[in-house]
């Protein structure tokens, strides 16, 4: 797909050509056998299909365009695929596209999900998602978003957008913002697959590896995060159910990152999760190290959400009082987790009535059914005592 898009300069045309090439392959390969280079065969066939179509449909100017393509005909090899996928990622995640369009395009063109599946995962009607994708493609075409890897000076900012898109996909899967299913595993798998792809394409960018490590370390807890469909907090999870191979892969990636000595927000978040994963029990968590990592995170990528997580670490080190002061200074009134954390701190401090009230606010703000059930259980246990 990526190779053909560069060749044709049009994503929609490339998509149709690749689909036709696969259809031809399905018809032909059972008889003729699989060619020595299947990907190369698909690329060549798709290119020829696209050229045929351009010739057939050509108005005068388009005929010139097709002729130009033929003159510029270059040897398309499989190793081009590497660079073309990288170009495709940066095009899909161009900052001139709206974030939801970036996500939809990335999943559609680089991920393995169909439009239907993406629509289901994001709880939007398939027609809405299809329209979102076709609008984004039209904008890429009409506005002349280039199909190339940004220059070195633009790369850090552009890479941040790419990583943000992949992490957004992961988070949407891991803690779905709304809806009834807590985990939408296919989105997590897809985000990790994209993370691996980015890691293979840009092994020299520690934040790319940091993001992959972060996703693996979090995803390792996927099975332990629910029992009988109910949400289980990190502290109460059965650590035997953590996926050791994912943890090990995440830790190994972290070691590679550390060797590059260029820390960034994803690496620090991964490091925090690595500390959690190293503790044999919740009580043995090295909160001092976690707090230090949050302090660093507050320096390089301060945000209210980071401040909230840092406050949790402060509480775990025995400073529930101090943590409550910190939480009360964070201006995130619409964020349900802030109220949930506040409620938990008030409960620890024995301020039951205030805690109950905070749980009620958290329940009002929370849109995920599973998380709501969890909050409701917390609230009930509080009022029962």
């Amino acid at each position, binding site marked *: 797909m990526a190779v053909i898009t560069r060749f044709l300069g049009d994503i929609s045309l490339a998509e149709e050509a690749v689909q036709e090439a696969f259809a031809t392959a399905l018809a032909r390969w059972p008889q003729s056998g699989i060619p020595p280079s299947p990907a190369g065969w698909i690329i060549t066939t798709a290119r020829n299909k696209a050229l045929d179509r351009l010739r057939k449909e050509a108005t005068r*100017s388009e005929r010139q365009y097709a002729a130009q393509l033929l003159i510029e005909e270059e040897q398309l090899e499989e190793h081009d695929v590497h660079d073309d996928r990288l170009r495709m990622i940066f095009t899909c995640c*161009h900052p001139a596209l709206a974030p939801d369009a970036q996500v939809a395009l990335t999943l559609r063109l680089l991920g393995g999900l169909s439009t239907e599946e993406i629509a289901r995962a994001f709880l939007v009607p398939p027609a809405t998602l299809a329209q979102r994708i076709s609008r984004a493609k039209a904008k890429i075409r009409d*506005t*002349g*978003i*280039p199909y190339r890897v*940004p220059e070195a000076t633009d790369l850090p900012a552009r890479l941040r957008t790419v990583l943000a898109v992949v992490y957004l996909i992961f988070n949407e899967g891991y803690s779905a913002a709304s809806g009834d299913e807590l985990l939408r595993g296919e989105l997590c798998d897809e985000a990790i697959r994209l993370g691996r792809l980015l890691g293979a394409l840009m092994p020299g960018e520690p934040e790319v590896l940091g993001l992959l490590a972060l996703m693996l370390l979090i995803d390792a807890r996927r099975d332990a995060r629910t029992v009988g469909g109910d949400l289980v907090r990190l502290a109460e999870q059965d650590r035997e159910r953590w996926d050791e191979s994912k943890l090990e892969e995440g830790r190994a990636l972290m070691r590679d990152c550390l060797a590059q000595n260029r820390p960034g927000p994803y690496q620090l978040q991964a490091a925090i999760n690595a500390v959690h994963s190293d503790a044999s029990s919740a009580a043995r968590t090295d909160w001092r190290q976690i707090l230090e990592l949050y302090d660093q995170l507050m320096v390089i990528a301060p945000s209210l959400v980071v401040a909230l997580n840092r406050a949790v670490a402060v509480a775990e080190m025995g400073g529930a009082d101090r943590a409550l002061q910190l939480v009360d200074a964070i201006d995130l009134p619409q964020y349900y987790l802030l109220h949930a954390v506040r409620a938990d701190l008030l409960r620890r401090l024995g301020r039951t009535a205030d805690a109950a009230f905070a749980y009620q606010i958290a329940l009002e703000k929370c849109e995920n059914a599973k998380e709501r059930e969890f909050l409701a259980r917390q609230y009930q246990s509080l009022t029962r005592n």
Partner: protein
Amino acid sequence: MKQYLLSVCYQAGSTQPAPEALGKIMSDVMAVRKEMQTAGAWVFSGGLHPPSSSTVLRHQNGEVVLTDGPFVESKEQIGGITIVQVADLDAALDWARKLARATATPIEVRPFMEHRS
């Protein structure tokens, strides 16, 4: 090559910067224009009088009727435009970034339709 319209946007009713600040903005904008011209990207640019200075013409029942004032009363207004001719959106965005810094106002970037002849 593609052509892009870079519009300088401002909020309706916002007051003009003080004369000395305006002078600085004007010279910064001129510097960007010079840079565009040197790079061969510049096609046209110009500032606009306020929307109240506009006249609208409508074709009605075979007649063209004139009315005073802007076509739509809008909150966002265009203070000036620049047209650049560059390879792609990224190149247009680079110029728009410079213009946004010089004018200290939002810049809207919009591609012209291509007319292949």
